């Protein structure tokens, strides 16, 4: 096996090795492209994560309220988005929905994939948030209401602070998953890491080096999320609660 790590210093037009490994004057090297692809992966993943946390939390909370209508809405949302394969959802957003609603055709595919991935993940987060709230003793909710809090206040000051602390570990997994799931964006023409790998290995015939580099970047990205969430978990610890007695 001969390694050829210089492949990253080649420019993408004629394959010449560039002196400083970075292109100039509009020419780009595979290294430039790799870095931009990493940027796309992180952008898709982080924006989707925001969408997922927002909708997932709202839907998870709705599913624990006393109102039957809101519970139904939350359940329907969760089941809709978690029972359809992710790639199929992305294609629905990209090909099917715009043909039914023509104005959506103008929406950039980047936003479509952020919504698609975000809503898919929101179903999973909704399930985790619900599990967190349900794991609290019933007396907590009753006590909150008994001392005169309204229902929203009970959630805000009593239930959610405990529930979110409990579900930080599964949320960590979900946040790491979203980095890896962002690979589906290649299917709708986002120039992210997986697409870079597919395209660059064909152009350069150095598939092993390209895939190793891409694997490394995925690992670094997901592991960074893991460390950040770990720091959040430590910072949020409350003595006497789960994991807080260390």
């Amino acid at each position, binding site marked *: *096996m001969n390694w050829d790590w210089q492949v990253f210093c080649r420019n*993408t*037009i*004629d394959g010449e090795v560039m002196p400083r490994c970075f292109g100039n004057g*509009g020419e780009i090297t595979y290294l430039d492209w790799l870095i931009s692809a990493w940027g796309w992966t992180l952008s898709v993943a982080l924006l989707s994560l925001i969408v997922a946390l927002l909708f997932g939390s709202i839907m998870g909370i709705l599913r624990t309220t006393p109102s039957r209508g809101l519970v139904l809405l939350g359940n329907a949302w969760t089941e809709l988005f978690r029972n359809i394969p992710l790639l199929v959802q992305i294609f629905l957003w990209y*090909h099917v929905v*715009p*043909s039914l609603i023509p104005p959506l*055709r103008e929406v950039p*595919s980047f936003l479509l994939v952020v919504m698609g991935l975000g809503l898919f993940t929101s179903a999973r987060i909704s399930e985790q948030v619900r599990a967190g709230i349900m794991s609290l003793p019933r007396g907590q909710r009753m006590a909150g209401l008994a001392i005169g809090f309204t229902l929203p206040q009970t959630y805000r000051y009593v239930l959610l602070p405990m529930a979110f602390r409990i579900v930080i570990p599964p949320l960590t997994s979900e946040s790491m998953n979203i980095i890896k799931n962002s690979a589906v964006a*290649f*299917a709708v*023409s986002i*120039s992210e890491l997986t*697409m870079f790998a*597919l*395209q660059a*290995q*064909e*152009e350069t*015939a150095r*598939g092993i080096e390209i895939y190793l580099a891409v694997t490394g970047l995925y690992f670094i990205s997901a592991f960074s999320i893991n460390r950040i969430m770990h720091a959040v978990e430590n910072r949020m610890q409350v003595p006497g609660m789960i994991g807080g007695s260390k």
Partner: protein
Amino acid sequence: MKKTLTLGLTIVTALALSQPVLADTLAKIKSSGAVTMGVRESSGGLSFVLGDSKFAGFHVELCDRVLSDIRKQLDLTRMETRYQPVTSQNRIPLMQNGTIDIECGSTTNNAARQKDVSFANTTYVEEVRIAVKANSGINSIADLKNRSVATTTGTTSVQHIRKHERSAGVDFKEVYGKDHADSFLLLESGRADAFVMDGQILAGNIAKSKNPADFKIVGEVLSVEPIAIMLRKDDPAFKKAVDDSLGAMMKSGEIAKIYDKYFIQPIPPANKPIGLPASEATKAAWASPNDKPMEDYTKK
């Protein structure tokens, strides 16, 4: 844990160091009475799967005939042909390690690949073209200014349009389909104004579309690529046997009939014709057999 790691490293090293097998394919076929043909599952009319591990296509049929000539040459009464589906990623390693003996798919003969493998004489010349909607008013690459152009991820066409974009000073937006059908859907649904790809793939997709008259192939040829049957490197006896057999078909005109069968007549699975007559470049390759790499075509 440490033991597993050492074992893993040993296996990786062993794989990495495994040498290409000795190249004497004729002797291998004679002693084993079998030959393994690398085929593609979906390479337009060149090589495609019929289901039930049966394969057909222009290159597959050429190879079947070549192998039958080789069987006669080796004086074997029986010779088994095994079909091994390959992809563009694994075809060269599988050829080098001896898993396949002859690859009959859609491999471009270029200088970089000639370092690793050898090619029979060119049997098909692919031209990269532009497909557009018939009513789009686009007639050449210059008309693509500020339009969006679709192509398929993991193909060399992406590189060609990038080069043309640079040299012609035409600025356009690239969109990528994950496979050819997806790229064609981008054109069909109006997300892209043009689809740049190998001529036979464009022709095949147009033929299969709901309304073929809505599309046309226009403009200059963006790139010319000789497609050839791939062989192991440094095996002159086998290459000569293959080239002789192909040469006889080129001389007798038999190759044109086989071409007609896959590119003009209806083919499975849709039973629709690709409808792409042999190009001048393809006919030239048949008239004077050669194994020149792609780089020699672009120099002209």
